[in-house]
């Protein structure tokens, strides 16, 4: 587009008091050759906005640079339509509110901010949404036909969308179908599972296509464009879907590993799953001889909350044992049930069912089983009774039920090993290495994604392919694929239903956004996407390896094959690329590089160091804003450059900045590690990894490594910002000015 640029300087909110506006205007019109530059005391007011609108109409202005408040505010006021480029230059929070007024350094800071803004506006193009050649599908594939899967399919259909449900067994239902009864809202009595009704409503729904005895052989493509191969009893079908819900459920923890609790040794020691199946089958009887059951002991947390088995809590087992104790009582009112527990975990309204179980006369013993044995054909259990401080023995037991936990269906029995590239550290004789849980090669087969980064969803600790986000629980690391139900965390049936409904919502939403070229979370609505200048590609594979979402495939020669609908628009690929061939219309290596170069670097003898801070715009940038709002003060020598994600950091900027005389570089990114907060999962971690490789550059330039530092900043760390900056400035002062100034 032919740009007609105008700069508008707001002098309100103390900006006019802090800065000399005329020199800035001169800078814009003379040095930066912006044809139009105006100031206004209250730009976000009606009159100010009208001034801009008038210029748009009368002068044909289409690129608007606003020097004033942060881009985080007045976003709606300064929205002039999708065909206008608006660039916000921060004169308020980061200048007028955090710097001494009318000082030369403050003035220089504002001028640099304007220079960067103009440079950026100059490089910005209006993004055009990605439009695939094929037709987008809004159908939803649901993998797994248990309660979660059936619910997801049904809720999808109820919203008017088409669902395809794939179940590997020969009937729908999953564990729900194997249950006798459920314990659910309002947790007063047991309720029927209604599994048959649910199965019927799923199979009879015209908007749901059910494939039983089927597996997903292949999923290729991306959101809106997934092509799915389903194998059913030897037949293959291909479907086109827009998004995927994985609801492959769970398996019980392997009780064979619980020999110390008598499993495998005594026939009458069973798991809660076996107990449920027995109950659903009609009668609970002693497996050893089929005789009637009177006394039953339930061992809670059998293998759960145990570092040697499942360290986590499966959250449903307390209720399940109480439910099964109810079955036993119903079958024989004279029976006595013992429940040996660590903590009774009946959260929310389900506490009512705990009360019911107590009222029914079940005996709860807080403590751990120390021995399970047999005497005279009946079982006994010895335990430490914590509440009596005694060792107790419960005899004459007909059955012992082990309340085993849930293992996500994704979790492999053994950590898979794959062929590593030659000379990989830690590889075995065959050249194989263990796969990390967050790799796409870790999880058990369910989706068979044709993705360069592996066929399955990356998982977290314990093999759950869950999100690590509290605020965004459905996000997996594969765009358009959402998990639901117990595969992502252990949950009771009531929650499974809610969870599956939510996952269906996300899947539907993904198809809708994709169809109009918009990104999904976390840059929902973003129309830009990365474009690859393939002529200069060196097949280094960094982009295909580093994309946190596995968006980029590879051809056999190692050329990247981008899938724009899988892209979350973080720019990690852009940062990874040593050849700088990946660019967005409004975000590129060149753009940021030129912004850095736009900064005016004073001569060494002026003793005015220059430091750039590359700031993650999700958390760190708002924190800097907050520091300004709090009127905290910091050095006037720093220049902030917001980034979509620090994972977009390209080392060329560091090299260019330092060789251009910039004295130091700070990176403000999110916390990474186990409790990472990066919205793009790996971004800030990648930035730090890349930074570790910068020493080469620094060595080449004979510069001190302390000139470049990475700092983790949370959004509420605003009070720490002045100190971080001050300390860095001290470091810079210690190492002295960059010798490359003026080159």
């Amino acid at each position: 587009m032919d740009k007609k640029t105008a700069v508008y300087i707001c002098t309100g909110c103390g900006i006019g008091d802090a800065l000399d506006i005329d020199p800035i205007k001169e800078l814009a019109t003379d040095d930066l050759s912006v044809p139009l530059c105006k100031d206004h005391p209250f730009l976000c007011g009606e009159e100010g906005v009208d001034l801009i609108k008038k210029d748009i109409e009368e002068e044909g202005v289409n690129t608007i640079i606003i020097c004033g408040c942060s881009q985080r505010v007045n976003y709606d006021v300064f929205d002039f339509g999708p065909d206008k480029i608006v660039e916000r230059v921060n004169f308020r929070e980061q200048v007028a509110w955090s710097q001494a007024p009318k000082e030369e350094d403050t003035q220089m800071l504002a001028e640099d901010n304007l220079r960067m803004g103009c440079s950026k506006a100059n490089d910005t193009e209006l993004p055009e949404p990605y439009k695939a050649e094929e037709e987008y599908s809004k159908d939803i594939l649901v993998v797994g036909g248990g309660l979660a899967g059936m619910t997801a399919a049904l809720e999808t259909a109820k919203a008017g969308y088409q669902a395809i449900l794939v179940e590997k067994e020969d009937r729908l239902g999953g564990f729900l179908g194997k249950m006798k009864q459920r314990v659910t809202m309002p947790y007063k009595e047991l309720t029927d599972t209604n599994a048959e009704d649910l199965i019927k409503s799923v199979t009879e729904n015209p908007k749901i296509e059910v494939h039983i005895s089927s597996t997903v052989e292949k999923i290729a493509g991306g959101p809106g464009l997934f092509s799915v191969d389903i194998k059913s009893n030897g037949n293959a079908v291909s479907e086109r879907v827009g998004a995927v819900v994985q609801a492959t459920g769970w398996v019980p923890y392997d009780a064979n590993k619980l020999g110390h609790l008598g499993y495998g040794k005594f026939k009458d020691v069973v798991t809660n799953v076996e107990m449920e199946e027995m109950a659903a089958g009609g009668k609970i009887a002693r497996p050893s001889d089929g005789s009637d059951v009177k006394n039953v002991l339930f061992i809670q947390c059998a293998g759960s909350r145990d570092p040697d088995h499942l360290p986590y809590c499966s959250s449903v087992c307390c209720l399940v044992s109480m439910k099964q104790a109810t079955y036993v009582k119903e079958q024989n009112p004279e029976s006595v049930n013992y429940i040996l527990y660590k903590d009774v975990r009946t959260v929310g309204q389900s506490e009512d069912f705990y009360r019911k179980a107590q009222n029914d006369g079940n005996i709860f013993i807080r403590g751990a089983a120390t021995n399970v044995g047999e005497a005279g054909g009946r079982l006994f259990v010895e335990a430490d009774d914590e509440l009596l401080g005694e060792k107790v023995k419960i005899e004459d037991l007909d059955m012992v039920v082990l309340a085993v936990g849930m293992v996500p269906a994704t979790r492999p029995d053994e950590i898979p090993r794959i062929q590593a590239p030659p000379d990989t550290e830690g590889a075995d004789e065959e050249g194989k290495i263990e796969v990390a849980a967050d790799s796409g090669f870790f999880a058990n087969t369910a989706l068979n994604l044709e993705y360069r980064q592996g066929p399955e969803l990356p998982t977290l600790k314990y093999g759950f392919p869950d999100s690590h986000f509290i605020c965004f629980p459905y996000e997996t690391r594969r765009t358009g694929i959402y998990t639901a139900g117990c595969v992502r965390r252990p949950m009771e049936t009531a929650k499974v239903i809610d969870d599956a409904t939510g996952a269906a919502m996300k899947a539907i939403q993904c198809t809708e956004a994709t169809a109009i070229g918009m990104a999904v979370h976390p840059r929902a609505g973003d129309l830009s996407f990365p474009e690859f200048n393939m002529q200069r590609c060196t097949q280094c594979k960094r982009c295909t390896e580093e994309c946190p979402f596995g968006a980029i495939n590879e051809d056999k020669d190692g050329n990247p094959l981008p899938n724009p609908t899988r892209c979350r628009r973080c720019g990690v690929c852009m940062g990874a690329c040593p050849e700088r061939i990946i660019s967005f219309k409004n975000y590129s290596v060149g753009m940021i590089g030129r912004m850095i170069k736009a900064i005016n670097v004073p001569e060494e003898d002026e003793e005015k160091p220059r430091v750039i801070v590359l700031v993650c715009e999700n958390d760190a940038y708002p924190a800097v804003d907050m520091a300004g709002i709090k009127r905290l003060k910091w050095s006037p020598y720093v220049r902030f450059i917001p980034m979509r994600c620090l994972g977009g950091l390209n080392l060329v900027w560091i090299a260019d900045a330092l060789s251009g005389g910039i004295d130091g570089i700070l990176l403000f990114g999110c916390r990474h590690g186990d409790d990472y907060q990066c919205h793009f999962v790996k971004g800030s971690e990648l930035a730090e990894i890349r930074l570790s490789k910068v020493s080469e550059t620094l060595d080449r330039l004979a510069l001190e490594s302390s000139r470049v530092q990475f700092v983790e900043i949370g959004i509420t760390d605003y009070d720490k910002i002045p100190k971080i900056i001050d300390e860095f400035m001290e470091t810079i002062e210690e190492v002295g000015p960059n010798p490359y100034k003026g080159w």
Partner: protein
Amino acid sequence: MEKNVNYDPSFAQEVFENVDAGEEIKMCMNCGVCAGSCPLRFNMDYPPRQIFQMIRLGKREEVLNAKSIMLCTSCYTCKVRCPRSIPVIDVMHGLAHYAIKQGILTRRDTANFGREFWNQVYRLGRIDEKDLPRRVFFAAGFIEGIKSTLKYLDMGLKLLLHRRMKLLPERKIKGIQSLRKMLDKAEKMGKGGAAA
């Protein structure tokens, strides 16, 4: 090695069937607020919730011989605070009654006092405050009775002087005969009546 204590549900069943409010203990979740609320908690051998747990375990002798079940001052704090609405006080009273019925006199004075108290109610329909302590003191034997009487003589005299002790002879209520019939019936119908 420490010996295991065997769970025996029969005592719990005995309590449910024979002790007033006995079944209420099923709801206990061992929070301990009852003991923490009790004015005489430092004098108990077992906190109430532990008594309940011992009932579940089947420790019949320990429970019925526990001092705790005889120490209730009837302040109701445990009852008003119990998160499971267990009338702890009623259970303790029920256990005390049941234990005494079984001939267990862990707190002899209290047992005597209770028995004499009730005897007087049954006899007169009311309590005669001057007569009751005398009967209680002497229930422990003649010498003990004299000693106790002397110990409290000063207080008795003071009360007398301040017109707070009536010297009139015992007086039955008019409907004493019918009251006794009612109580006889209640004794038969109610729980906790079964003697050993």
